[in-house]
Protein backbone atom coordinates (compact mmCIF):
# COMPACT_ATOMS: atom_id res chain seq x y z
CA UNK A 1 0.00 0.00 0.00
CA UNK A 2 1.55 3.26 -1.10
CA UNK A 3 1.36 6.03 1.44
CA UNK A 4 0.41 9.59 0.54
CA UNK A 5 3.08 12.14 -0.28
CA UNK A 6 4.22 14.13 2.76
CA UNK A 7 2.74 17.32 1.32
CA UNK A 8 -0.68 15.64 1.59
CA UNK A 9 0.06 14.16 5.02
CA UNK A 10 1.14 17.56 6.38
CA UNK A 11 -2.01 19.21 4.99
CA UNK A 12 -4.07 16.64 6.86
CA UNK A 13 -2.11 17.24 10.05
CA UNK A 14 -2.75 20.98 9.66
CA UNK A 15 -6.46 20.38 8.99
CA UNK A 16 -6.63 18.33 12.19
CA UNK A 17 -5.50 21.41 14.11
CA UNK A 18 -8.06 23.83 12.64
CA UNK A 19 -11.58 24.68 13.74
CA UNK A 20 -12.48 25.48 10.11
CA UNK A 21 -13.93 22.76 7.89
CA UNK A 22 -11.24 21.44 5.55
CA UNK A 23 -11.57 19.00 2.66
CA UNK A 24 -8.58 17.37 0.98
CA UNK A 25 -8.93 15.66 -2.38
CA UNK A 26 -6.62 13.77 -4.68
CA UNK A 27 -5.92 15.09 -8.17
CA UNK A 28 -9.25 13.87 -9.58
CA UNK A 29 -11.48 15.04 -6.75
CA UNK A 30 -11.83 11.95 -4.63
CA UNK A 31 -12.18 13.06 -1.01
CA UNK A 32 -9.21 11.57 0.81
CA UNK A 33 -9.69 13.45 4.10
CA UNK A 34 -12.07 15.80 5.86
CA UNK A 35 -11.64 17.10 9.39
CA UNK A 36 -14.13 17.14 12.26
CA UNK A 37 -15.64 20.57 11.44
CA UNK A 38 -16.19 19.34 7.87
CA UNK A 39 -18.05 16.33 9.25
CA UNK A 40 -20.80 18.74 10.32
CA UNK A 41 -21.23 19.92 6.73
CA UNK A 42 -21.25 16.44 5.24
CA UNK A 43 -23.23 14.85 8.04
CA UNK A 44 -20.88 11.90 7.99
CA UNK A 45 -17.80 10.95 9.98
CA UNK A 46 -14.42 10.39 8.34
CA UNK A 47 -13.77 7.54 10.74
CA UNK A 48 -16.83 5.78 9.35
CA UNK A 49 -16.69 6.67 5.65
CA UNK A 50 -12.95 6.84 5.06
CA UNK A 51 -12.14 8.14 1.60
CA UNK A 52 -15.07 8.94 -0.70
CA UNK A 53 -15.25 8.84 -4.47
CA UNK A 54 -15.99 12.19 -6.08
CA UNK A 55 -19.38 10.95 -7.33
CA UNK A 56 -20.37 10.02 -3.77
CA UNK A 57 -19.37 13.05 -1.75
CA UNK A 58 -20.33 15.65 -4.35
CA UNK A 59 -24.00 14.68 -4.04
CA UNK A 60 -24.21 15.00 -0.26
CA UNK A 61 -24.89 18.74 -0.41
CA UNK A 62 -26.30 20.90 -3.21
CA UNK A 63 -24.48 24.14 -4.05
CA UNK A 64 -26.68 27.13 -4.99
CA UNK A 65 -25.74 30.45 -6.59
CA UNK A 66 -26.74 33.96 -5.50
CA UNK A 67 -30.27 33.45 -6.90
CA UNK A 68 -30.49 30.10 -5.15
CA UNK A 69 -30.32 28.26 -8.47
CA UNK A 70 -28.26 25.06 -8.62
CA UNK A 71 -24.61 25.85 -9.12
CA UNK A 72 -22.85 23.86 -11.83
CA UNK A 73 -19.84 21.88 -10.58
CA UNK A 74 -17.46 23.97 -12.71
CA UNK A 75 -18.54 27.02 -10.67
CA UNK A 76 -17.21 25.55 -7.43
CA UNK A 77 -13.76 26.72 -6.24
CA UNK A 78 -12.52 23.20 -5.57
CA UNK A 79 -13.54 21.95 -9.01
CA UNK A 80 -11.89 24.99 -10.58
CA UNK A 81 -8.69 24.26 -8.65
CA UNK A 82 -8.74 20.66 -9.79
CA UNK A 83 -9.14 21.86 -13.37
CA UNK A 84 -6.56 24.63 -13.49
CA UNK A 85 -4.35 23.96 -10.44
CA UNK A 86 -4.85 27.53 -9.23
CA UNK A 87 -6.41 28.94 -6.03
CA UNK A 88 -10.06 30.08 -6.14
CA UNK A 89 -12.53 31.69 -3.79
CA UNK A 90 -16.33 32.09 -3.90
CA UNK A 91 -19.28 32.80 -1.65
CA UNK A 92 -22.34 30.65 -2.31
CA UNK A 93 -25.12 28.71 -0.61
CA UNK A 94 -25.31 25.03 0.14
CA UNK A 95 -28.38 22.96 0.78
CA UNK A 96 -27.81 19.88 2.85
CA UNK A 97 -29.73 16.60 2.51
CA UNK A 98 -31.98 17.79 5.34
CA UNK A 99 -32.97 20.88 3.34
CA UNK A 100 -31.04 23.35 5.48
CA UNK A 101 -29.59 26.23 3.43
CA UNK A 102 -26.44 28.03 4.57
CA UNK A 103 -24.33 30.75 3.05
CA UNK A 104 -20.65 29.82 2.98
CA UNK A 105 -17.38 31.14 1.74
CA UNK A 106 -14.92 28.66 0.22
CA UNK A 107 -11.24 29.01 -0.61
CA UNK A 108 -9.48 26.28 -2.48
CA UNK A 109 -5.82 25.86 -3.29
CA UNK A 110 -3.75 23.28 -5.14
CA UNK A 111 -1.11 21.22 -3.37
CA UNK A 112 1.95 21.61 -5.57
CA UNK A 113 4.77 19.51 -4.14
CA UNK A 114 8.50 20.14 -4.03
CA UNK A 115 8.90 18.61 -7.43
CA UNK A 116 6.35 21.04 -8.86
CA UNK A 117 3.94 18.12 -9.16
CA UNK A 118 0.22 18.60 -8.61
CA UNK A 119 -0.70 16.24 -5.78
CA UNK A 120 -4.23 17.24 -4.80
CA UNK A 121 -6.39 20.13 -3.62
CA UNK A 122 -7.68 21.61 -0.39
CA UNK A 123 -10.96 23.44 0.21
CA UNK A 124 -11.46 25.52 3.36
CA UNK A 125 -14.95 26.62 4.34
CA UNK A 126 -15.12 29.98 6.11
CA UNK A 127 -18.03 31.32 8.05
CA UNK A 128 -19.60 34.25 6.22
CA UNK A 129 -21.09 37.10 8.22
CA UNK A 130 -23.26 38.71 5.53
CA UNK A 131 -26.70 37.28 4.79
Amino acid sequence: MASHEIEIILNRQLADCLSLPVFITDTIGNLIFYNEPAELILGTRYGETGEMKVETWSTIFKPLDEERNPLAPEGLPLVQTLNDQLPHHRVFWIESLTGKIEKISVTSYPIIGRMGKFLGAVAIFWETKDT
Partner: protein
Amino acid sequence: MKVSIKGVRGSIPTAGSETSYYGGNTACVTLLEDDWMIILDAGSGLQKVTLPQKPTNRIDILLTHLHFDHIQGLGFFGSLFDPSKEVHIWAPESSTQSLNSRLNRFLSPPFFPVMMRDLPCKLFLHDISKSSFQIGPFSIESKYVIHPGPTVGYRITGKNAVLAYIPDHEQALGLSGMIEDKKWISGFDIADKADLLLHDAQYTGYEYKEKIGWGHSSMEDAIKFAAVAEVKRLLFFHHDPSRTDEQLDIIFSKLKQKDFEFENFDFAREGTDIDLG
Protein backbone atom coordinates in the same frame (compact mmCIF):
# COMPACT_ATOMS: atom_id res chain seq x y z
CA MET B 1 24.36 -7.21 2.64
CA LYS B 2 26.80 -6.04 5.28
CA VAL B 3 25.83 -2.91 7.20
CA SER B 4 28.60 -0.99 8.96
CA ILE B 5 27.70 1.83 11.27
CA LYS B 6 30.28 4.62 11.26
CA GLY B 7 28.40 7.42 12.99
CA VAL B 8 25.16 7.56 14.98
CA ARG B 9 25.15 10.91 16.76
CA GLY B 10 22.74 13.69 15.88
CA SER B 11 23.45 17.37 15.38
CA ILE B 12 27.13 17.63 16.36
CA PRO B 13 30.02 15.20 16.96
CA THR B 14 30.57 14.40 20.61
CA ALA B 15 34.05 13.05 21.18
CA GLY B 16 35.00 11.92 24.67
CA SER B 17 35.17 9.08 27.10
CA GLU B 18 31.51 9.54 28.09
CA THR B 19 30.33 8.78 24.55
CA SER B 20 32.95 6.29 23.43
CA TYR B 21 30.73 3.20 23.64
CA TYR B 22 27.86 4.34 21.40
CA GLY B 23 30.12 6.74 19.54
CA GLY B 24 30.30 10.44 18.95
CA ASN B 25 30.47 10.72 15.17
CA THR B 26 27.53 12.04 13.18
CA ALA B 27 25.55 10.08 10.63
CA CYS B 28 27.34 7.68 8.33
CA VAL B 29 26.59 4.06 7.41
CA THR B 30 28.09 1.85 4.71
CA LEU B 31 26.49 -1.05 2.88
CA LEU B 32 28.58 -3.70 1.18
CA GLU B 33 27.44 -6.35 -1.25
CA ASP B 34 29.61 -8.18 -3.79
CA ASP B 35 32.41 -5.65 -3.24
CA TRP B 36 30.04 -2.79 -4.10
CA MET B 37 29.86 -0.17 -1.40
CA ILE B 38 27.41 2.61 -0.93
CA ILE B 39 27.74 5.22 1.78
CA LEU B 40 24.68 6.64 3.53
CA ASP B 41 25.23 10.20 4.70
CA ALA B 42 28.53 11.96 5.09
CA GLY B 43 28.63 13.03 8.72
CA SER B 44 31.87 12.97 10.66
CA GLY B 45 31.63 9.15 10.68
CA LEU B 46 32.73 9.28 7.03
CA GLN B 47 36.34 9.52 8.23
CA LYS B 48 35.97 5.93 9.53
CA VAL B 49 34.97 4.51 6.14
CA THR B 50 37.38 2.05 4.58
CA LEU B 51 36.86 1.34 0.90
CA PRO B 52 36.42 -2.30 -0.21
CA GLN B 53 39.61 -4.29 -0.65
CA LYS B 54 38.81 -4.95 -4.27
CA PRO B 55 39.94 -1.79 -6.06
CA THR B 56 37.01 0.29 -7.17
CA ASN B 57 36.98 3.61 -8.91
CA ARG B 58 33.37 4.37 -8.14
CA ILE B 59 32.10 5.72 -4.82
CA ASP B 60 28.39 6.42 -4.20
CA ILE B 61 27.34 8.68 -1.33
CA LEU B 62 23.60 8.92 -0.65
CA LEU B 63 22.69 11.94 1.44
CA THR B 64 19.33 12.06 3.20
CA HIS B 65 19.54 15.86 3.38
CA LEU B 66 22.07 18.62 3.60
CA HIS B 67 21.97 19.52 7.28
CA PHE B 68 25.49 19.98 8.52
CA ASP B 69 25.68 16.80 10.61
CA HIS B 70 25.06 14.80 7.43
CA ILE B 71 27.67 16.46 5.21
CA GLN B 72 30.44 17.65 7.52
CA GLY B 73 32.65 14.67 6.68
CA LEU B 74 32.53 15.30 2.93
CA GLY B 75 35.38 17.78 2.68
CA PHE B 76 37.75 15.38 4.39
CA PHE B 77 36.88 12.29 2.38
CA GLY B 78 40.02 11.15 0.61
CA SER B 79 38.30 9.91 -2.54
CA LEU B 80 37.25 13.46 -3.41
CA PHE B 81 40.93 14.30 -3.79
CA ASP B 82 41.83 11.23 -5.84
CA PRO B 83 41.73 11.88 -9.62
CA SER B 84 41.24 8.17 -10.30
CA LYS B 85 37.95 8.11 -8.38
CA GLU B 86 34.47 8.65 -9.72
CA VAL B 87 32.36 10.01 -6.86
CA HIS B 88 28.57 10.09 -7.18
CA ILE B 89 26.63 12.14 -4.64
CA TRP B 90 22.88 11.63 -4.47
CA ALA B 91 20.69 14.01 -2.48
CA PRO B 92 17.13 15.33 -2.36
CA GLU B 93 16.14 17.94 -4.87
CA SER B 94 15.16 21.40 -3.74
CA SER B 95 12.47 23.35 -5.56
CA THR B 96 14.73 26.38 -5.83
CA GLN B 97 18.39 25.36 -6.10
CA SER B 98 20.34 22.54 -7.68
CA LEU B 99 22.39 20.16 -5.55
CA ASN B 100 25.50 21.61 -7.16
CA SER B 101 24.55 25.10 -6.04
CA ARG B 102 23.69 24.04 -2.48
CA LEU B 103 26.80 21.89 -1.95
CA ASN B 104 28.94 24.68 -3.37
CA ARG B 105 27.90 26.91 -0.50
CA PHE B 106 29.49 24.41 1.89
CA LEU B 107 32.48 23.33 -0.19
CA SER B 108 33.88 26.76 -0.89
CA PRO B 109 35.65 29.55 1.03
CA PRO B 110 35.21 30.84 3.66
CA PHE B 111 33.62 27.63 4.97
CA PHE B 112 36.08 25.28 3.25
CA PRO B 113 39.46 26.05 1.66
CA VAL B 114 38.87 24.12 -1.57
CA MET B 115 36.28 24.99 -4.20
CA MET B 116 34.07 22.09 -5.19
CA ARG B 117 34.94 22.62 -8.86
CA ASP B 118 38.64 22.18 -8.00
CA LEU B 119 38.21 18.74 -6.42
CA PRO B 120 40.45 16.32 -8.34
CA CYS B 121 37.96 13.42 -8.48
CA LYS B 122 35.37 12.99 -11.20
CA LEU B 123 32.31 14.29 -9.36
CA PHE B 124 28.74 13.46 -10.38
CA LEU B 125 25.82 15.06 -8.56
CA HIS B 126 22.35 13.54 -8.69
CA ASP B 127 19.23 15.44 -7.59
CA ILE B 128 16.65 12.90 -6.46
CA SER B 129 13.16 13.01 -4.97
CA LYS B 130 10.66 10.17 -5.09
CA SER B 131 13.11 8.12 -7.08
CA SER B 132 14.09 4.56 -7.90
CA PHE B 133 17.58 3.78 -9.12
CA GLN B 134 20.16 1.02 -9.21
CA ILE B 135 23.74 1.09 -7.97
CA GLY B 136 25.52 -2.21 -8.64
CA PRO B 137 23.59 -4.90 -6.74
CA PHE B 138 21.52 -2.36 -4.79
CA SER B 139 18.01 -1.29 -5.78
CA ILE B 140 17.30 2.02 -4.13
CA GLU B 141 14.07 3.89 -3.52
CA SER B 142 13.94 7.34 -1.99
CA LYS B 143 10.98 9.33 -0.79
CA TYR B 144 10.54 12.64 1.00
CA VAL B 145 9.89 12.33 4.74
CA ILE B 146 8.87 14.85 7.39
CA HIS B 147 11.91 16.86 8.48
CA PRO B 148 12.74 20.55 7.95
CA GLY B 149 14.03 21.15 4.42
CA PRO B 150 14.12 18.60 1.59
CA THR B 151 14.84 15.25 3.28
CA VAL B 152 14.46 11.71 2.02
CA GLY B 153 14.51 8.26 3.54
CA TYR B 154 16.16 5.41 1.64
CA ARG B 155 14.96 1.86 1.12
CA ILE B 156 17.84 -0.26 -0.13
CA THR B 157 17.24 -3.74 -1.42
CA GLY B 158 20.23 -6.02 -1.79
CA LYS B 159 20.33 -9.61 -2.97
CA ASN B 160 18.75 -11.03 0.18
CA ALA B 161 17.77 -8.21 2.49
CA VAL B 162 16.21 -4.78 2.78
CA LEU B 163 17.59 -1.89 4.81
CA ALA B 164 15.47 1.17 5.61
CA TYR B 165 17.41 4.30 6.53
CA ILE B 166 15.49 7.28 7.96
CA PRO B 167 17.92 8.98 10.33
CA ASP B 168 16.07 12.30 10.61
CA HIS B 169 12.31 12.03 10.73
CA GLU B 170 9.35 13.33 12.70
CA GLN B 171 6.56 11.06 11.54
CA ALA B 172 4.43 11.96 14.57
CA LEU B 173 4.22 15.67 13.75
CA GLY B 174 0.62 16.72 14.27
CA LEU B 175 -2.12 17.27 16.80
CA SER B 176 -2.50 13.65 17.80
CA GLY B 177 0.86 12.17 16.83
CA MET B 178 1.35 9.49 14.22
CA ILE B 179 -1.83 8.68 12.33
CA GLU B 180 -2.31 4.95 12.61
CA ASP B 181 -3.26 4.42 9.00
CA LYS B 182 -0.43 3.21 6.79
CA LYS B 183 -1.43 5.49 3.92
CA TRP B 184 -1.01 8.52 6.16
CA ILE B 185 2.37 7.73 7.74
CA SER B 186 5.41 9.57 6.44
CA GLY B 187 8.14 7.08 5.56
CA PHE B 188 5.92 4.01 5.69
CA ASP B 189 6.79 2.86 2.14
CA ILE B 190 10.47 3.13 2.96
CA ALA B 191 10.28 0.98 6.07
CA ASP B 192 7.59 -1.50 5.07
CA LYS B 193 8.70 -4.98 6.27
CA ALA B 194 12.40 -4.08 6.12
CA ASP B 195 14.92 -6.45 7.67
CA LEU B 196 16.57 -3.57 9.48
CA LEU B 197 15.33 -0.04 10.12
CA LEU B 198 17.75 2.68 11.22
CA HIS B 199 15.46 5.40 12.51
CA ASP B 200 15.61 8.73 14.28
CA ALA B 201 14.96 8.39 18.02
CA GLN B 202 16.63 11.46 19.44
CA TYR B 203 14.25 12.09 22.29
CA THR B 204 12.50 10.25 25.06
CA GLY B 205 8.72 10.52 24.89
CA TYR B 206 8.82 13.05 27.74
CA GLU B 207 11.39 15.22 25.95
CA TYR B 208 9.53 15.10 22.65
CA LYS B 209 6.61 17.05 24.07
CA GLU B 210 8.91 20.07 24.27
CA LYS B 211 10.49 19.45 20.85
CA ILE B 212 7.49 19.05 18.57
CA GLY B 213 8.29 20.45 15.15
CA TRP B 214 12.07 20.14 15.52
CA GLY B 215 12.09 17.33 12.97
CA HIS B 216 12.99 14.38 15.18
CA SER B 217 11.24 11.44 16.79
CA SER B 218 10.85 10.04 20.23
CA MET B 219 12.03 6.52 20.94
CA GLU B 220 8.45 5.49 21.66
CA ASP B 221 7.28 6.84 18.29
CA ALA B 222 10.14 5.08 16.52
CA ILE B 223 9.03 1.81 18.14
CA LYS B 224 5.41 2.44 17.15
CA PHE B 225 6.52 3.19 13.58
CA ALA B 226 8.60 -0.02 13.46
CA ALA B 227 5.61 -2.02 14.68
CA VAL B 228 3.22 -0.59 12.08
CA ALA B 229 5.80 -1.07 9.32
CA GLU B 230 6.40 -4.66 10.54
CA VAL B 231 10.18 -4.38 10.33
CA LYS B 232 12.29 -7.20 11.73
CA ARG B 233 14.71 -5.08 13.71
CA LEU B 234 14.94 -1.43 14.73
CA LEU B 235 18.08 0.47 15.67
CA PHE B 236 17.64 3.92 17.20
CA PHE B 237 19.68 6.55 15.37
CA HIS B 238 20.57 10.22 15.73
CA HIS B 239 21.34 10.05 19.45
CA ASP B 240 21.01 13.37 21.22
CA PRO B 241 24.49 14.95 21.45
CA SER B 242 24.01 15.73 25.13
CA ARG B 243 23.45 12.08 26.00
CA THR B 244 26.25 10.01 27.58
CA ASP B 245 26.68 6.25 27.22
CA GLU B 246 25.49 5.81 30.80
CA GLN B 247 22.33 7.81 30.13
CA LEU B 248 21.59 5.82 26.98
CA ASP B 249 21.96 2.58 28.96
CA ILE B 250 19.56 3.82 31.63
CA ILE B 251 17.01 4.89 29.01
CA PHE B 252 17.36 1.52 27.29
CA SER B 253 16.72 -0.36 30.55
CA LYS B 254 13.60 1.68 31.21
CA LEU B 255 12.29 1.17 27.69
CA LYS B 256 12.80 -2.58 27.94
CA GLN B 257 10.65 -2.65 31.06
CA LYS B 258 7.72 -1.21 29.14
CA ASP B 259 5.25 -3.35 27.28
CA PHE B 260 5.68 -2.48 23.60
CA GLU B 261 4.05 -4.26 20.70
CA PHE B 262 7.49 -4.34 19.06
CA GLU B 263 10.47 -5.49 21.11
CA ASN B 264 13.42 -5.99 18.78
CA PHE B 265 14.95 -2.55 19.23
CA ASP B 266 18.28 -1.23 20.44
CA PHE B 267 20.50 1.83 20.18
CA ALA B 268 22.74 1.88 17.10
CA ARG B 269 26.39 1.86 18.05
CA GLU B 270 29.31 3.22 16.07
CA GLY B 271 31.67 0.46 14.93
CA THR B 272 28.96 -2.19 14.66
CA ASP B 273 28.85 -4.49 11.62
CA ILE B 274 25.61 -6.30 10.85
CA ASP B 275 25.31 -9.06 8.28
CA LEU B 276 21.77 -9.03 6.88
CA GLY B 277 22.47 -12.03 4.66
